[in-house]
């Protein structure tokens, strides 16, 4: 047996401990460290937190009642009293944007979350069970893909009528096909892995395998696409607002504010510029976060 100096074995132990430590933080924590290194993503996160804060504390942060009309002060340019001017009914644009943040973020996040949950369940079942279930699900999803972007939303809302709940339903339905395809693809390759086979051999039930083995291992793409989905949901909400199928006036929502503003393009272009810029900045921020999450969570893109 080779002689090991006590000092060396001590160093070896430290190195071993450090390696263990690194192994232990590899998962979520390493992804977080990776995410934190991305400056764009941090700016995006800060902006979204700022918008969420504005929405959450709208009554405190706003300077005026967002619904109070004042016909004498219609379409005024920004002043110290009205930071972003007033709209066609003399309402304070800044306060309306602050209250609109509530709706836009809320609808986007809730709609996408519901859709992501449904899509994940559908994808898990379809990928894991295979056979005719899988064929059926994939055919239905192919059909849903035939109605790209806003088309399905227009169709459903023109039947159901515009309302907040229907808007959320439509956004959820939109997220389902993409999510179930991604989850299914992942499950198809995961279920051939040894640990899933082992669990099966040990007699684990289908639900247990899906929940404990398949779901956690396909979480990364789900998180990424959920984030990007919120960005798309906000854009869709705005587009539906433009079509008059979204959140109905007088409720303050960015999309319908933008849609209102277009009628006064000549006289008061700022009425349209402000909400549009806010939507763009919010969507850019969410996309930056989504991109960073993809880089941080996807081991294949890491270099």
């Amino acid at each position, binding site marked *: 047996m080779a002689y090991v100096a006590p000092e060396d074995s001590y160093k070896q132990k430290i190195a071993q401990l450090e390696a263990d430590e690194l192994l232990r933080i590899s998962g979520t924590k390493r992804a977080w460290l990776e995410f934190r290194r991305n400056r764009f993503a941090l700016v995006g996160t800060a902006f979204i937190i700022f918008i969420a804060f504005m929405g959450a504390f709208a009554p405190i942060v706003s300077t005026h009642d967002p619904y109070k009309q004042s016909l004498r002060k219609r379409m005024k340019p920004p002043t110290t009293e009205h930071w972003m001017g007033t709209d066609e009914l003399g309402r304070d644009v800044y306060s309306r944007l602050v209250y609109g943040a509530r709706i836009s973020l809320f609808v986007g996040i809730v709609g996408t979350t519901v859709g992501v949950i449904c899509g994940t369940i559908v994808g898990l079942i379809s990928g894991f069970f295979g056979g005719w279930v899988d064929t059926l699900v994939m055919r239905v999803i192919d059909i849903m893909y*035939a*109605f790209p972007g806003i088309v399905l939303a227009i169709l*459903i809302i023109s039947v159901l009528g515009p309302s907040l709940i229907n808007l959320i339903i439509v956004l959820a339905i939109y997220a389902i096909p993409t999510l179930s395809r991604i989850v299914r693809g992942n499950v198809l390759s995961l279920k051939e892995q040894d640990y899933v086979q082992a669990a099966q051999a040990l007699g684990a039930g289908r639900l247990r395998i899906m929940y404990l083995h398949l779901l956690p291992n396909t979480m990364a793409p789900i998180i990424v696409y959920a984030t990007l989905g919120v960005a798309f949901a906000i*854009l869709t909400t705005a587009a539906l607002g433009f079509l008059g199928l979204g959140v109905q006036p007088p409720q303050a929502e960015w999309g319908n504010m933008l849609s209102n503003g277009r009628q006064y393009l000549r006289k008061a272009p700022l009425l349209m510029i402000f909400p*549009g810029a806010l*939507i*763009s900045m919010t969507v850019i921020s969410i996309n930056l976060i989504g991109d960073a999450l993809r880089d941080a969570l996807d081991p294949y893109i890491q270099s």
Partner: protein
Amino acid sequence: MQKYIIRRLLLAIPTIVGAITLVWFAMQLAPGDPALMFVPPDYQGEDAAAYLEKINEKYGFNDPLPLQYARYMRNTLGFDFGTSLRTMRPVSEDLVRRVPNSVRLGVAAFLLAAAMGISLGVLAAIKRGTWVDSALMVFALVGVSMPSFWFAYVLILLFGLYIPILPPSGLGGVKHMILPTIVLGYGSAGSLTRYVRSSMLEVINQDFVRTARSKGVSERNVLIKHALRNGLLPVVNVLGINLAFILAGSIIVESVFAWPGVGLYLFDGVQGRDFPVVQGACLLIAASVVLVNLLTDVMLVLVDPRIRFE
């Protein structure tokens, strides 16, 4: 290869039938009587009741559901979407008249998006990590993130009102097409640029590219003969998806620019609560998407020999 194309063609049929079924299902979801959706909104009281009778008789909303479904399927497959509630003209005739305008705008936007997306994406991949890459990625991200109608109005404001060099709306010569094409194309170009870049980066790191370099092939040839060919294969697929999204995006863009295509028709239908128009236009878009996907798959077989042998 022929077998693959035929199989793919046969698969498109159930998708179209499914799309029609989906629209039919959506109609059944209508709160109350689906027949109400076929009554013009300005009909009130007695008028509406009398009209409802007529609708029920014509579309057979009192018949058993399977019968209704069969009739709906037959009519739709026969390109009969009913008549517009506002103009009383057959929807299919209106659609046929408007398709050429939409195709013109869609093709122009698609070409712009493809040219911009591929060239900028390749450029960003070559210059990865430099300021050129960052600038292009920001440019692409902004394209993906802006609401298209907002961008459209900003352009109208700039080039139609402040520096009036372009017509702000309407159908006309090439000048009328510039703004809508830019709006419709830029959004797609953004997502395409991002995709092309990542696809190229994947290829650039692969062994055969390294081998080519180590053989002493010039950087130019490595790029054109080895990287580009392989990097752009998956892009064909995405081009198809992009065309589908251009179809969807045209609803908004055509409305803003008063471009008399299928998109504006759908927009007017939505505004006027004209359900036959809405369903007809949606179904036409769905059918075009299925067709585009079919063409994309056939294109893929032609350009990628690997698929042929599967």
